């Protein structure tokens, strides 16, 4: 008779617990990040009653980042939008074609924006310090030339052009840059002084996410860089 035959149920469960407890596991993420995501989720739920998870399964998406608008000057919602969450510094909107636009009015609350994007099914790492997360740079497609050269398969539409070269206010009639073969018409022209970046969620298969970095430059919001990110980068 084996000694284990006489193990009580409690002994077996204790042995299982001891063994599993010895296994290394990841330390807890930053609680502020968790709370930012929760806050974004709560905010969106309040704004769109009954919509709590449908965004996460949209077939394709893009995000638009608009900058330089005063905090009190909110972007008009795109005509085709389905759901929207608004905060003072930025706006996240899902468009009718499944794309998601994000309007940033100020470089504030990157964790909140990150949480809002994640809540909408776009794993994201957002920094407003201008530096991409080094942990993401080895990821396929995780690096882009500097200065940025959109559009790319990930970054489908950019407003205004030339992207990242001139302050948005320098061109009185800025236009859109679009990825080759991008069939959708550009969204409505944003208000003057805004930058819009459109990212295709269909370019994010599997666990891939995006990392977004922006910084102030000479008094205006500089180029917003958007590249692929690994789950380790986005904590998603």
């Amino acid at each position, binding site marked *: 008779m084996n000694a284990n035959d006489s193990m009580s149920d409690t002994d077996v469960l204790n042995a299982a617990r001891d063994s599993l407890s010895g296994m290394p596991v990841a330390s*807890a993420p930053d609680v502020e990040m968790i*709370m930012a995501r929760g806050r974004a989720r709560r905010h969106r739920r309040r704004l769109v009653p009954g919509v709590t998870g449908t965004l996460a399964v949209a077939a394709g998406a893009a995000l638009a980042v608009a900058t330089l608008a005063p905090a009190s000057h909110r972007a008009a919602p795109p005509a085709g939008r389905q759901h929207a969450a608004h905060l003072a510094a930025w706006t996240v909107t899902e468009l009718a074609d499944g794309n998601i636009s994000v309007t940033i009015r100020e470089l504030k609350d990157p964790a909140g924006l990150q949480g809002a994007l994640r809540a909408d099914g776009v794993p994201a790492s957002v920094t407003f310090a201008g530096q991409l997360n080094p942990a993401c740079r080895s990821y396929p497609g995780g690096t882009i030339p500097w200065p940025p050269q959109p559009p790319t398969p990930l970054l489908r539409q950019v407003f205004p052009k030339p992207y990242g070269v001139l302050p948005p206010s320098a061109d009185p009639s800025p236009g859109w840059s679009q990825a080759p073969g991008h069939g959708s018409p550009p969204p409505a022209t944003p208000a003057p002084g805004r930058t819009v970046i459109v990212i295709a969620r269909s370019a994010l298969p599997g666990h891939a996410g995006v990392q977004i970095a922006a910084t102030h430059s000479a008094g205006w919001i500089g180029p917003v860089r958007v590249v692929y990110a690994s789950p380790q980068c986005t904590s998603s």
Partner: protein
Amino acid sequence: MSNERAEFADFFRTGWEPCLRAVLTVVGSQQLAEDQVAEAFVRAWASWRKVRSHPAPRAWVVRTALNAGASWWRQRSRELPLAGHDLTAPGDPGEGLDASLLAALRHLSPRQREVIALRIFLDLDTDVIARQLGIEAGTVRMHLSRGVAALRRELTSTNDHGG
């Protein structure tokens, strides 16, 4: 509000590891478990006033994490993997997991793993587990009994062969 934040932060700090281990026991993948538990805590904070008054808040997190995993799978089932990315394949065991125990866990049903995880990591009794899972206490006892029996057999087998 600041009290709620402090309260949640403490709940998160103390609950992360047991919840993660419980979910990991069920799903068998470190990456998946981390994803799902993080998402569950996000939802817990989004509904904190409800969760804080829940009779077993950690069990709420574990159930939500496992449900989030199901959603995750439904979502990803329509997508193609990114070539060359560095993910742990879904279902891969976490590093360091005891091999014999893993073998035993693999042979359990998800429900059996869940019952065992709730018992050993959240220290929930049969009645609480039953309420959490929406099943009868007798069903919990059955899952627990069968799961424990399978684990015992594996431990016995390991000792027999390991000397």
